């Protein structure tokens, strides 16, 4: 449903392209992980997949960029917002600041979509439960921790029920429990609602366990693409500064095997 063909992008006033001839085709219902070192272009790819490039950032583009077969540049951000959700890297800047409680903050996007009150209530309760923050509902979104704000930011987009959900390092401030809550919620939505999830993330173990497909970026170029097993176990990930999962790392030290495991389950089998 989203398709990039030899897509390049330059931020306004820059010489170096942030995305360099990236070709990527994303189908409905996929759970895709994006990996790459700092500055590799993960955020920029997230913006492109959600339409913020080219709609919000002007800059220069080259190549093809389509959403459901329509040229992304011809679509309108206001209408896209109901279909594609984007969760940003920094949670604080996503708190709209226009609402008084967490519940009302989550409602902000729904009010903008013009939903009726009872539908809003149902969706808010569901989103609060999905990211496990029911107990924060009546608090001020400014009076909670960074990790809690990150959960609020995710819930705020989940409640809008977009068909495509793009998340840029959504667990950067979350503890292991929080990370598990988010990944579990996302995979649940992928399997029950057939939504598409695209997630930039440094926590490789989680990607390995939950994603259908992993895309590796380096210097704005697409360097590898395929199953988590194929991509994350490859030697190339070390060169790209992506690193390896702790399971691969352990196996690499303990075993002499060609195919490194990337999940706990695979590691258990390999070490037997």
């Amino acid at each position, binding site marked *: 449903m989203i398709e990039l063909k030899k897509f390049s992008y330059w931020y306004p006033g820059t010489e170096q392209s942030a995305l360099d001839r990236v070709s990527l085709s994303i189908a409905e219902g996929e759970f895709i992980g994006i990996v790459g070192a700092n500055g590799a272009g993960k955020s920029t790819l997230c913006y492109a997949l*959600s339409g*913020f490039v080219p709609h*919000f950032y002007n800059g220069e583009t080259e190549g093809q960029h389509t959403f459901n077969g329509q040229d992304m540049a011809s679509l309108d*951000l*206001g*209408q896209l*917002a*109901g279909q594609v*959700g*984007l*969760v*940003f890297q*920094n949670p*604080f*800047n*996503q708190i*709209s*600041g*226009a*609402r*008084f409680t967490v*519940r*009302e903050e989550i*409602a*902000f*996007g*729904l*009010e*903008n*979509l*013009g*939903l*009726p*009150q009872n539908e*809003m*209530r149902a969706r*808010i309760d569901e989103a609060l439960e999905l990211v496990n923050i029911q107990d924060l509902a009546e608090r*001020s979104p*400014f*009076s909670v921790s960074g990790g809690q704000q990150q959960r609020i930011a995710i819930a*705020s*987009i989940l409640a*809008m029920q977009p068909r495509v959900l793009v998340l840029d390092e959504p667990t950067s401030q979350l503890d292991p429990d929080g990370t598990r809550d988010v990944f579990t919620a996302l995979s649940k939505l992928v399997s029950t609602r057939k939504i598409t999830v695209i997630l930039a993330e440094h926590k490789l173990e989680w990607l390995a366990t939950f994603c259908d497909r992993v895309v590796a970026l380096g210097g704005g170029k697409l360097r590898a693409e395929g199953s988590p097993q194929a991509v994350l176990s490859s030697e190339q990930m070390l060169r790209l500064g992506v690193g390896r999962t702790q399971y691969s790392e352990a196996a690499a030290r303990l075993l002499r095997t060609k195919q490194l495991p990337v999940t706990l389950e695979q590691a258990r089998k390999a070490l037997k």
Partner: protein
Amino acid sequence: MRGGSIYIERSSGLHRLHPLTKVALTALCFASAAALPGLPWLLALFVGLLLPLAIWGRLTGAFLKACLLVVGPFVLSLTIIQGFFSGGETVLFNLGRFVFTQEGLLAGLTFAARLLVALGGTLLLMQSTPQPHLMQALTERGFPPRIAYVVLTAIQIFPSFQDRAQVIMDAQQARGLELQSGLLNRARLLLPMVGPLILGSVMDVSERAMALEARAFSSPARKTSLNTLADSLLQRALRWLLALAAAALLLWRLWSALQ
């Protein structure tokens, strides 16, 4: 991080009033501040209406404290200036060539009382109403949502500047910049702080604007609200009454000035 609002959460009748009812009350206070003829009237309004409302809203302490903090310095400076310079017959005392008159003192106090009444009305509104609810009430009456948003977030987000300034200051102190000593030194050393502060804020603005778009802020749909603000026929009537009273006061004042 603090939300920058002066709202004080209490469970009270004043808090439960429709925001526009309180706006009408504030409008009456402003009209009274401008139109009431003298000190006794102004003080009577403050003691007879504003103070009881503050007590009803369980805000007495915070209300009086804010009044004192804001109006206090004005009382002092206004009475001194007016006392010495606005002239009059009844001399209370003199300092060399300067005479301090009773008429001047009264004028200063009256001016301060006008401030007190206007401020008191504003405080009652702001301390008992979450700003988002006030804005909702206004946008429901056709106030443009974009402007409402800018005003609201400016109020709520401003304290993040202070927090950020503190963070930068701490960081630079840790790197050996001495910020504590000497006024001139301080001013000079503040410069390295301004850059990160402004840059950080500009980057924030663009990220914030994007985050807003992600929340469908420019969606073509007609916006709805999660909460219905409680209103009643009685309150509607009261609002009209308050607005009429405010208008009448101003007209009366205008008329008597023209006489």
